[in-house]
């Protein structure tokens, strides 16, 4: 891969909910083909940061720069169009819709001709392609006509991750993707993350499962009470030192 500028830059991001300062001057630089771990205790501000990256929320101050260009998302749709796909901690699937309908939600395939222009959908193509594309990113699910509510928690998570990966152009943000997953399914998620990296995507991986973070990431950013307390290559952490940095029981080296 040729030397390129960062695909995503956050610069001095601050955000608050009323009197709660959720993020305080957070900066982060992410490159293509890089997997970044974002860790921190409950309430550290990880999900808030992710919602700012993906356009669900706007920061109080600070800049979001994608591919060298400063962006102001008006909606999650803007971020999607800029190639940023997100798996949210709060489920981002519609449980009563089929797997195929969920994969193509907001990007429906229309029928040809006049019917298509009137908004009629090509449901069959969507169901078929959904399975194919999910397989391509390494996710296997049962028949795509099933509704998401008929899947197990792990299968739902797989569908959600698959959707994020297959639509992503630049950046995939995964907020606790291995939540509720068994050991084998978690390994599959890590495998999907590695494949995304091979495709040259930048992955931001939020998790409380520190061995997973150390296993799959290139760099780890630690948040505590809305601030970045450490940002270093994964090789410089062990599970123990990472834990200590998160909880703040030991001063972060170099600070």
């Amino acid at each position, binding site marked *: 891969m040729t030397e390129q500028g960062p695909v995503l830059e956050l610069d001095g991001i601050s955000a608050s909910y009323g009197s709660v300062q959720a993020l305080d001057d957070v900066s982060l630089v992410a490159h293509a083909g890089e997997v970044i771990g974002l860790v921190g205790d409950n309430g550290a501000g990880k999900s808030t940061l992710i919602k700012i990256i*993906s356009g*669900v929320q706007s920061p109080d101050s600070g800049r979001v720069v994608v591919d060298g260009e400063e962006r102001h998302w008006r*909606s*999650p*749709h803007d971020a*999607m169009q800029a190639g940023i796909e*997100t798996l*949210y901690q*709060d*489920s*981002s*699937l*519609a*449980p*009563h*819709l*089929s797997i195929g*309908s*969920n994969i193509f*939600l*907001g*990007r*429906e395939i*229309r029928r040809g001709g006049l019917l298509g222009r*009137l*908004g*009629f*959908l090509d*449901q069959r193509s969507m169901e078929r392609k959904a*399975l*194919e*594309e999910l*397989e*391509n990113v390494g996710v*296997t*699910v*049962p*028949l*795509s006509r*099933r*509704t998401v*509510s*008929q899947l197990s928690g792990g299968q739902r998570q797989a569908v959600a991750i698959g959707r994020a990966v297959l639509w992503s152009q630049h950046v995939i943000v995964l907020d606790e993707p291995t939540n509720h997953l068994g050991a084998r399914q978690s390994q599959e998620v890590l495998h999907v993350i590695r494949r995304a990296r091979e495709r040259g995507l930048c992955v931001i991986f939020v998790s409380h499962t520190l061995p997973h973070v150390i296993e799959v990431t290139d760099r780890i950013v630690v948040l505590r009470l809305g601030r970045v307390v450490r940002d270093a290559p994964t090789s410089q952490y062990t599970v123990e030192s990472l834990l200590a940095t998160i909880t703040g029981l030991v001063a972060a080296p170099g600070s």
Partner: protein
Amino acid sequence: MSDAGGMPRVRPREDRVPWARRVRATIANQQFVLFVVLVALLVFFGSQNSRFFTTAEFTNLIIDFCGLILLAVAETYVIISGGIDLSVGSTVAISGVVGAFAMETLASHHVGEVAILLVGTVVCAGIGGAVGVLNAVLITKANLVPFVATLVTLSAGAGMALVFSRGADVGSNPAAISWSATGAWIFTWESMIVIAITIVLSLVLHFTAYGRYNFAIGSNAFAARVAGIDVRRHVASVYVVAGVLAGLTGMFFYIRLGAGAPTSGIGDELNAIAAVVIGGVSLVGGVGVMTGTILGAMILTVVTDGLIFINIQPTWNQVVVGAIIALAVVLQSLRPGRQGASA
């Protein structure tokens, strides 16, 4: 994406359904049960009074069905999107009264009959749409919950209809009445129009992107939003559509009556919601089928008209409707995996 890779593909497991299971699934199918109930009711009332199976009576049944179905279609859209619209009944009254006033004014200026009815239809739909816009603003801008917002317009609409009409029927249009008696076979012209609208909106709900977004929003509004759907705009549009449908129903009643009555449609929101519930639409949103609503409305119509036919006091009507709703809800709760009935 490329299909060329030599990697073995994992074939998805096809769900195999042996015929016995398929039969059981059909019986468990809400639509099927509703259809059987409808046929049973028709047979019952027909066996009690043979005049029930005449063209004239079927024409009446269809007219009564058409007075209800657009409101039920409106509720189907609104309820699947995760809301509710209590105002549709009042909107029938206010739009009918205002439309009648407009038509009366035109008639006094010797405008032709057809032109009067066309303008009246536009006025009724417009008033209905205006109420819908008001609902949409209260819900998507003032952030009132749909129940409260449409309770406001329910009261205001019913009150305005009374004030505007001074409590009496507005206008007198014998030409409309005689026109409404014409048509083909068991369908009057205005019934055909209502049925056509119903078919179009059924197709839109189940086969277009607009319909898909309606289910998605009712199922998980956050998911719909982060998938790039403009949830507020969609929800607003659904209430406007509901208002327009109520306005058209106002015109429908005007044609039948030859006048705009301030009592037309009052309370009909409950019948519409009943039809929707009987049809298996989930009140929490995200689930429903338009054919269910249509069957629900047919059942309600047949029961209401049939009871009159076999000389049972109309006062019993409400009790029977209540029993049917209870039965439908119990049936739904017995059905396994009832989450999965949608797009």
